[in-house]
């Protein structure tokens, strides 16, 4: 295979002190090309707005492709008793009453349309014997509700939306790291955004009326995570710096089952579909331990419950040989497993040398999802900054203190569409704002700093340091003392991060881009830790050893993080009460 090489890009790099930028214009700028970003793009474009999508790696690689289990929507194809009301109830009750009732209502009603729409866009769902879309059971969903495509639902969702984007000829720029959202100094409305064209290393100024943040979550701030490279909390950091509110940042979902061995694959997701299809959890002595924690729902209890149960087995010394627990699907038989869980079968075979039709899997909790994020208005996905919208994992409010499996794919379709529509409508009447020259100048100075440092910190090593502090002090079970220590260490790392060094030129310089991401991660970690310190109770994904009980009298509130002077401040906002006709649905939850 030698001798042949495709012609490379012109190698003329941008000088490391070059402070010039290229300008791009659009009505609506969408940051992120996962399911939420692409669905928003389709809607915004169909509504007549000039739409530009930018993503920090490549189109089609977003974390959405990792979603395996399915899309939760109350079609009632398998269980006719299902309805949007039950889906709404499950979402709010299992979110430990912290979620926004209106967002959950919109989700439960509209997910049904979005699934059929996705089918008409070309997605090939598994079928029932009668030819309808098949639905599988999943943790804490009352009925079989997840519409799925084998165990590659997210991949199919992304490809299908990608095709719709191509069909509409919506422009997409890959390899772009957006670093700031700009506001018109006179009106306070969004007037643009700034970023780096990673491939060339050049700067980009986006002049736009609206920005939709669809950048996903922040799982990479933890050492053991199922999340991909991109999940560094950029969206929350962008919005916070633009003055928007963040909410529920302490609510980090630990997925009960991640791989633990070999070391190189630690944290890799083992889909909940394994339990949905009948997988059993056992401890070292072979006991099916979920009987102790949730005898009714067993392995299909809510994720926070299962994750805590596994954690308890592990720390109390009943773990597997590699320090996790066992997950056993062998009873289903080889044919069934290979057909229903093909990716899991090959994942264990290829990464761990284990045949799951013959051997048990070893699993332990892994960081999976941020329930918190940018605070948005439920119907329109508007943030507290005019012209700034957010959808998907980057936004908050829907999942409360615990997200149900399958609700995130429903979320990105439902709220991606709503954000696209609302941003396009906003852009139709909004006047183009002014971008202050000093904003671009300040931003370029901030971004170029790592090129001026010599003999400084390695950004890849600093990212690892952040992740280990989070894992140590802000894990499944937290304490006031540990959190305080975590905050102290995180602020110390933040001080070190001023000394990050970018090595080499500006063309696709990962040490540079990762430095900028590390700053975002630090900001998000501070927000998570401060929120976790504030919430002095245990609810859903947030467990405090010093406050072990849920305390509705004091803590039916969302923790809001907002800029306060030069520092970060927390405030409390009571969870919105649902109208009486919906409240009756939630009784007993």
């Amino acid at each position: 295979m030698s001798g042949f090489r495709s012609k490379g890009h012109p190698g003329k790099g941008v000088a490391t002190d070059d402070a010039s930028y290229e300008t791009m214009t659009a009505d609506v700028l969408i940051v992120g090309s996962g399911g939420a970003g692409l669905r928003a793009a389709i809607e915004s474009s169909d509504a007549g707005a000039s739409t530009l999508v930018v993503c920090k790696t490549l189109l089609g690689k977003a974390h959405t492709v990792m979603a395996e289990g399915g899309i939760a929507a109350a079609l009632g194809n398998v269980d006719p008793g299902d309805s949007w009301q039950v889906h709404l109830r499950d979402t709010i009750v299992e979110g430990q009453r912290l979620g926004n009732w209106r967002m959950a209502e919109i989700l439960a009603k509209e997910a049904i349309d979005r699934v059929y729409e996705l089918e008409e866009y070309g997605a090939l769902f598994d079928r029932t014997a009668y030819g309808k879309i098949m639905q599988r059971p999943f943790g804490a969903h009352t009925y079989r509700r997840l519409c799925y495509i084998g165990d590659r639902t997210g991949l199919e969702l992304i490809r299908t939306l990608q095709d719709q984007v191509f069909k509409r000829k919506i422009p997409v720029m890959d390899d772009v790291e957006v670093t700031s959202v700009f506001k018109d100094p006179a009106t306070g409305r969004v007037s643009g955004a700034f970023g780096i064209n990673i491939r060339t290393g050049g700067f980009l100024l986006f002049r736009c009326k609206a920005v939709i943040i669809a950048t996903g979550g922040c799982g990479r701030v933890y050492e053991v995570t199922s999340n991909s490279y991109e999940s560094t909390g950029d969206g929350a950091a962008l919005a916070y710096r633009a003055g928007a509110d963040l909410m529920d940042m302490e609510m980090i979902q630990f997925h009960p089952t991640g791989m633990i061995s070999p070391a190189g694959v630690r944290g890799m997701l083992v889909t909940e579909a394994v339990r949905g299809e009948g997988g059993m959890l056992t401890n070292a002595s072979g006991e099916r331990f979920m009987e102790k924690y949730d005898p009714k729902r067993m392995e299909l209890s809510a994720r926070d419950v299962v994750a805590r149960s596994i954690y308890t087995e592990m720390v109390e010394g009943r773990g597997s040989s590699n320090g996790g627990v066992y997950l056993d699907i062998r009873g289903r038989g080889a044919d069934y497993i290979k057909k229903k869980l093909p990716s899991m079968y090959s994942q264990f075979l290829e990464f761990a040398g284990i045949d799951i039709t013959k051997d048990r899997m070893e699993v332990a909790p892994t960081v999976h999802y941020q329930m918190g994020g940018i605070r948005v208005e439920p119907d329109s996905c508007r943030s507290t900054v005019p012209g700034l919208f957010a959808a998907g994992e980057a936004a908050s409010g829907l999942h409360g203190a615990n997200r149900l499996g399958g609700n995130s794919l429903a979320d990105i379709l439902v709220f991606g569409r709503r954000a696209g529509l609302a941003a396009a409508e906003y852009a139709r009447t909004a006047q183009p704002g002014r971008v202050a020259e000093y904003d671009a100048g300040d931003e370029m100075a901030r971004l170029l700093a790592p090129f001026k440092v010599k003999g400084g910190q390695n950004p890849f090593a600093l990212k690892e340091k952040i992740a280990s502090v989070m894992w140590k002090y802000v894990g499944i079970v937290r304490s006031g003392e540990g959190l305080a220590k975590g905050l102290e260490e995180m602020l110390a790392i933040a001080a070190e991060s001023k000394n990050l060094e970018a090595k080499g030129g500006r063309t696709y310089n990962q040490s540079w881009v990762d430095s900028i991401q590390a700053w975002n991660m630090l900001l998000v970690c501070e927000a998570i830790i401060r929120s976790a310190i504030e919430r002095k109770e245990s609810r859903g994904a947030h467990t405090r050893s010093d406050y072990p009980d849920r305390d509705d009298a004091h803590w039916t509130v969302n923790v809001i993080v907002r800029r306060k002077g030069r520092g970060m401040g927390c405030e409390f906002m009571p969870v919105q009460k649902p109208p009486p006709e919906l409240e009756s649905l939630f009784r007993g939850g």
Partner: protein
Amino acid sequence: MSKAVRLRVFRGTGNDPTTFRYDTFDVPAEEGMVVLNAIHYVQSRLDSSLTARWNCKAGRCGSCAVEINGTPHLMCKTSLGMYDGEVTVEPMKAFPLIRDLVTDTTASRDTAGAIPPFTPRSVSKRPWLFYQGDVERSRELRKCIECFLCQDACHAIREHAADYIGPRWVAKAASFDMHPMDGSNRSKFLREEGGLEYCNVTKCCQEVCPEHIAITDDAIIPEKERVVDEHYDPLVWIYRKLKKRR
């Protein structure tokens, strides 16, 4: 496990051969270590200027495609235990080099946009009804993670890059054609614009596919047969002539 692995990594920027070189790094071996783990070790401890594209680190996204000892592989799925001695890691040769191990795989995206999209047959009944058996054929091709290792391995592309769209895109067209509700036909596109004839069925593409998709057997050959049936079959040809005259 104190054994070290020696990595030989391509370095260079764009189309400037004066920057091309190979750097050697010794990385401590760990059980179950894949090439991507070793690259991360280099970045965080030995040389932070090394650039590599990666994302999911679980074989799901297809970002970390490179050539390892001359053969197309995903870095996240390739165990270092497979190799004795030095391991050479280079960028894919069929795509324009950006820097070090990073290439521009978006170069062929226009092709994706040119494939006639999924176009549903007109049916009155909604929601659609079709059966699991109708799903399977297209499903296999939809496992594709767009790592483009198949395009890198394809020698037809190396010789006829301008004329042949390559295995990934033939499989994409076939995944639409095999959709049970699709009412369109991509044979004309594959023959006239896709350059399907350039593929001489050596199956290099399916050998390197990390998702084990039988690209040649299940996409390229059926599409070639369809082109032959529809374009070169004398009966169809006469029928078309007559139809046109009417």
